[in-house]
């Protein structure tokens, strides 16, 4: 406590300020703003998909724009065949359920590494969990948003959406609907502010991902997959 008081007394500002510390926001205005963003994006959807694809592919990501469940499964199948994956971990998300991803994975005989692993606080369990997840060759997520101008994926953590899927396996497949493509981080911030208004807090972890894991620490040579995924695939299902 002593250090706290000392530091605060050293940095305490003498001037009394009457302006609020934080910008005041009105939920109604945010909702309106969000609605405008959705309208604008819906109007430009083809352009947004195209920009996202270009940006993501500049970073060696592979983007598949598909029209229906059948095509989505075809893309996923080709990824499984190419990578020769035997084990996977995945999110539970409505989109993945809608696409029946589980059935497809089963038909290929892939093993779900986290099926048996439930959350627990014991140390050994934690190691078992990460050890098992680490063996998967494929991580499949049903991401929340994409940002067109940077080709970024937006992933929010929740009990059904762990952090490991986009991090531990060497291949990450992200699936989203085209209506989830926002134009830039400006749109995303409006969404997060609404989240904050509605839930009171942000999710425990929000990650923006652009491209695969990369390093240039040895003589500036670009090497992919230094700690996280080496490959990034994004399947975009065009919304009706």
């Amino acid at each position: 406590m002593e250090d706290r008081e000392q530091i605060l007394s050293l940095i305490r500002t003498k001037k009394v300020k009457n302006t609020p510390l934080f910008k005041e926001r009105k939920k109604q205005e945010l909702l309106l703003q969000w609605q405008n963003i959705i309208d604008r994006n819906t109007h430009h959807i083809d352009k947004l998909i195209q920009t996202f694809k270009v940006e993501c592919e500049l970073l060696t990501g592979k983007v598949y724009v598909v029209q229906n469940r059948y095509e989505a499964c075809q893309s996923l199948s080709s990824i499984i065949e190419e990578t020769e994956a035997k084990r996977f971990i995945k999110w539970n998300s409505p989109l993945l359920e809608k696409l029946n991803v589980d059935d497809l994975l089963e038909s290929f005989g892939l093993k779900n590494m986290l099926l048996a692993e439930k959350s627990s606080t014991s140390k050994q369990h934690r190691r078992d969990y990460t050890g098992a997840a680490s063996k998967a060759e494929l991580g499949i997520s049903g991401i929340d948003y994409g940002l067109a101008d940077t080709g970024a994926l937006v992933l929010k953590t929740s009990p059904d959406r762990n952090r490991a899927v986009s991090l531990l396996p060497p291949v990450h497949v992200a699936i989203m609907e085209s209506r989830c493509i926002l134009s830039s981080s400006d749109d995303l911030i409006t969404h997060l502010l609404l989240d904050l208004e509605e839930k009171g807090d942000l999710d425990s972890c929000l990650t923006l991902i652009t491209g695969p894991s990369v390093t240039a620490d040895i003589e500036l040579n670009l090497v992919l997959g230094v700690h996280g995924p080496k490959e990034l695939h994004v399947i975009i299902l065009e919304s009706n």
Partner: protein
Amino acid sequence: MEIRCNQFQELSKKALNDQNLQKALKNFSTLIQEKRNLAFSLLDDSEGLRDQAHNIKKETLERIDEYLEHLEKNVIRLGGKVHWARDAKKAREIVKTIASDKGVKTVVKGKSMVTEEIALNQGLIARGIEVSETDLGEFIIQLAEEPPSHLVGPAIHKTKEQIAELFSEKLGVRLMEDPQEMTMIARNALRDKFIQSDMGITGVNFAVAETGSIVLLENEGNIRLSTTLPKIHVAIMGIEKVIPNLEDLNIFLKLLARSTTGQKLSSYTSIITGPKRDGESDGAEEFHLIILDNGRSKILADEELRETLYCIRCGACLDFCPVYLKVGGHSYGWVYSGPIGSILTPQLINRKQAYQLPFASSLCGACAEVCPVKINIPKILLTLRRRMIEDPQWGKPSITEKTVFSLYAYIMRNKWLYEMVTKIARFAQIPFIKKGILKNLPPPLNKWTHHHDVAPLEKSFRQQWKRFSDKYEES
């Protein structure tokens, strides 16, 4: 780490003769400057964004006490713990106490300059705790037992042959040439560490007061692993890292990666808000935030120098500095190098020890031109120089230097004296001209010619003008 700032001249001489380093710095700067400039040219209104970032830092620091208290309140509400550390020793103590309370034996670390600043690794290792640096560059220099040579690329001074030898010696693998192969060796060695470790330690790029979040940027994924797999996450931030809200974060995210590597965004940007929630299967169960002063409150209190705290550690000022790009990071003798090191180091450590740093600049202004938060580094360099010359508390005022400059000022103000002195000097200089350059002047002027190539005095402008106009009239 041992502070060697007072050896700037010796260390930079060594660096200038190091062919590998010179080649590495050349390659590095060519690439990074081009990428950074391209990234900024594609950004709408980059000037406006830099101004906004500058103002956010300015206004936040004016009420930093309130923002830090707000941040603290939010982190605690979310289930995290907040610790305050007045200096490096206290910060190390806090980490050691958390580690020993929880029986932590192994720690994984994400790249963080502030942990270098407080020499955290040495402190933990002395307690028998195994610490693994996990950023590839940091991993390499930890094996080599060297300090980082760049804020962002800690191992840019090493060639791949040197790294191959290092890996072979320390990791017992065969000599390999391919960076890809070496990187995979590091990946496998470190993945096991991540799974086995009980604690992950990271720095903080931004702490958002309104939401109680910390934000971390990286390209490798090692920071995500450090915050996801171990049970305990300890994040360490200097007091200046706090920003008010998400709108502010948006501005900085547009600038930081572009300034650092020329990317639009880093591969991974994590916004972490408290420990993992109920039912979530990964992420740290315990979240500790250490708020560190370590000399920053002193900088904050000094109106002339306060801007130093605006720095977001992007490294752009290093990448464009003609001095840094010749002498490299190690010459600066401590954790922070380049222009930002030259203004930050003397304010954080014993000033007299870092006396040489503010003088190691040509004041060309490249640093200020690229700084994403528009810190006026040249002006701060001049302020520090002035204090070091005038104020015994800051440096070593020299009577000789003061006398010489007073005399110089006096001569410059008197026309007849100026003309007489320059007339004498034009003759007196003749024995000292070697290959068109003035060398080895007698004391006290030798202090100047020792470090500078000085052009000999030519005929005065008036004399030259007269000769020119006479000739013109003749023709």
